[in-house]
């Protein structure tokens, strides 16, 4: 029966080429636009570290003075250096890493390259294991290296390619900001998106080229950048000058493997705040937060407003296209009232007619879906040509490909329901008589 209905549907669609083309085009445009924007939204709101992100938490405490305090106010987005170091040394989580970002000039002495800037991350040893950064060569520096302010550096695979042609460069030296460093590890193409651990650098398509122990950076006064927020007489601090302890500029991440540990760590933060208040450093009542990666990204609303707005617009557009298709399908089905009347009179049940008409709308949905897919690929290609920071990420994955067809078929079947039902209500005798 399905084959027969399909044949009928194709015949009917062929009979009215312009109308069919219009319906298919409307569905394709609507699907294409919504899948393009939905894919961008999907990519941008994705999990940067699938499987790991649930165990990674971002502690916040409130070291600000009493002025400007109001209840329920969020603590600062980052930590001061001193609080970060205290919490790091307390080692109350399974793993923990303190970090900030910056830029360092690299002087490739034994190559023909000119000196250039590279994005840098200053952090502590657990960073790599905690975030699951894969090494191609070598390994992370050790906790002892952290303490010894070792001149060690881990470099990204892309930098290794640029400087050493992709060869194993572990053990070789690299001049950063005028100081010689020893390469201890080379990462294997690792760049989480969004750049969740420090959103100040831009949330997307940002990856560090060099990773240097934090204490080494503090000793050498390497440049840091990102956000520095001060209160009281904290003052600023830019470039190579470190901010004071009345400024927050550090990110601190911890790994907590179980809900019990998360609850315990919340206690640790409250207890730490109380202790600091007793010592006179903190002035406010304990005001701590502990969010995991996805909660942190939600809290910071990393997905650009424009992208959400575009997605909304595209779905509005799809809705109009579908209403349009409903109208056209209604016209088409009603025009065939006579034919349907004959079929009814010859014994076809309403249900059979309904199935036949739905198959016809399903065919439109399928063809529209293929058209929509092509348009979405074109749309994503256009997005990638745009110079925004997330543009390069806009690719259709398998789940979105599947979603395209489900959306196209589902939407057109839904759109076909009303016209098909209306067409089935036709009394057979009346139609036969009028002919």
């Amino acid at each position, binding site marked *: 029966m399905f084959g027969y209905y399909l044949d009928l549907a194709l015949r009917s669609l062929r009979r009215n080429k312009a*109308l069919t083309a*219009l319906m298919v085009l*409307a569905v394709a*445009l609507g699907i294409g*636009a919504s899948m393009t924007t939905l894919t961008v939204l999907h990519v941008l709101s994705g999990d940067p570290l699938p499987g790991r992100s649930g165990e990674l938490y971002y502690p916040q405490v409130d070291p600000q003075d009493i*002025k*400007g305090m109001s209840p329920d106010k969020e603590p600062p987005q980052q930590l001061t250096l001193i609080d970060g170091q205290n919490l790091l040394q307390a080692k109350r989580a399974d793993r923990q890493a303190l970090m900030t970002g910056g830029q360092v*000039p690299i*002087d490739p002495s034994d190559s023909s390259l000119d*000196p*250039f*800037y590279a994005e840098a991350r200053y952090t502590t040893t657990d960073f790599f294991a905690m975030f699951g950064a894969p090494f191609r060569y070598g390994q992370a520096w050790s906790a002892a290296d952290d303490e010894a302010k070792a001149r060690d550096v881990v470099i990204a695979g892309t930098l290794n390619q640029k400087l050493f042609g992709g060869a194993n460069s572990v053990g070789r030296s690299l001049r950063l*900001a*005028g100081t010689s460093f020893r390469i201890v590890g080379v990462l294997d193409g690792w760049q989480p998106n969004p750049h969740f651990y420090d959103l100040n650098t831009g949330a997307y398509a940002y990856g560090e080229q060099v990773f240097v122990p934090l204490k080494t950076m503090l000793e050498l*006064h390497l*440049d840091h950048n990102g956000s520095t927020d*001060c*209160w*009281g*007489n904290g*003052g*600023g*601090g*830019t*470039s*190579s*000058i470190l901010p004071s302890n009345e400024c927050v500029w550090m990110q601190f991440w911890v790994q907590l493997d179980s809900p019990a540990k998360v609850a315990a760590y919340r206690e640790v933060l409250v207890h730490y705040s109380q202790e600091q208040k007793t010592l006179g450093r903190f002035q406010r009542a304990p005001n701590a937060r502990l969010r995991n990666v996805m909660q942190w990204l939600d809290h910071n609303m990393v997905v*650009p*407003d*424009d992208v*959400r*707005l*575009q997605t909304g*617009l*595209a779905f*509005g*557009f799809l*809705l*109009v*296209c579908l*209403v*349009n298709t*409903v*109208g*056209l399908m*209604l*016209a*088409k089905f*009603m*025009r065939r009232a006579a034919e349907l009347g004959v079929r009814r009179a010859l014994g076809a049940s309403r249900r059979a007619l309904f199935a036949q008409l739905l198959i016809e709308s399903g065919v439109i949905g399928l063809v529209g879906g293929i058209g929509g897919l092509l348009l979405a690929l074109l749309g994503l290609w256009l997005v990638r040509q*745009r*110079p*925004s920071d997330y543009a390069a990420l806009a690719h259709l994955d398998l789940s979105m490909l599947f979603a395209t067809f489900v959306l196209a078929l589902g939407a057109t079947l839904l759109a076909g329901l*009303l016209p098909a039902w*209306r067409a089935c209500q036709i009394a057979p005798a009346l139609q036969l008589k009028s002919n």
Partner: protein
Amino acid sequence: MTLHPIIAALRKHKAGVVLISLQIALTLAIVCNAIFIIGQRIERINRPTGLDESNLFMVGQQWVNVPSGDDPAGVEKLDSMLKEDLVALRGLPDVAAAAPINSLPLLNNSWNGSLALKPGTEVKKEGNTRSTYYFGDEQTLSTLGLHLVAGRAFNAGDVQHHGFRDQSAPAGVIVTQAIADKMFPQHDAVGKPIYVDGSTTPSTIVGVVERMQVPSTGSWANDFAWNSTLEPVRLNANFSRYVLRAKPGRLQAAMHSIPSTLYAVNPLRVLDDDSVKSYADIRAEAYRADVGMAILMGVVCLILLAVTAAGIVGLTSFWVGQRQRQIGVRRALGARKVDILHYFQLENLLIAGGGAVVGLLLALGLNRLLMQHFEMQRLPVIYVLLGIVLVLLLGQCAVFVPARRASNVPPVTATRSV
């Protein structure tokens, strides 16, 4: 022609009429809001920074192996290097003017704080005037092409230099008209003392410039977009920025001559692809997302209107086909071609008008929704009215082709098909 027969006929096609009105209503709601968003973006892009932007460009560079600027000796060394650069840049044949500066409007890299009328207040205190700080020398104001409306520009005697960390407030500052109006609404601001970032020593306002935008284009800076303070200070760090004005028509040549000139002064520095940038590029980069959004909205609106027009053509064509006989009867009874044409045009006007009324409500509702979730302002009614005119015109254009076909139905059809 009375409306009665049209309305009676429409009753027979309830589903089709409802669908096409709904489509027009949705189109109207989306198009109104999209055009409003486009208008807002264009307004944002076109706001003047206060600078004379033609022939302006920026140079940013970083020295390698230099003192950090924490101690007085380091600061002196850095300052002498900065001055060497300035001498070299000012000596270039294609450069009309050059000056040090820490940032520029639209550069999205800013140093912000607050100004107070009393000494020693808290930086984040409510009631302080938020401001961004620009640091430059006696030539910065003229190089930027700022328009001085009161007082005087900085002279060489005003200009100090210090390290980045140094928070000492300068003796004199220049503020924008926006700051002067906010802090001294009743009086002339020139000669008045203000306190920079909770300082205990006053800084005297020596001049007022008409307008100068802050570096940040982000929405968080919307509240103080025109609150800029210029300090006569050369900031000394291991990097520096310069703003330069090329001689008319010599912008490319001037920009091209920068790297070799600076390397000749001191080769131990890093200049990368972004180091020399025309102001036009800075502007384009700052508003890239807005331009993209406006274009996208525009394209979607056009396609939406096209789809809706196609829908009207399709459905009306169907109705014309269905009513062939009735049209023939009317023609046989004496109706002229133009009567038939008008019938379909009026019918479309009724349907589109109904859709427009619903669309008006939908447009305002959608605007409310967007205001809740995004930074949107209230949709002015003029946009909705323009939108209504647009969809009514669209309906009339779309209906014309099938309506003319209807008017060409010969009267003889009435006798033939029965």
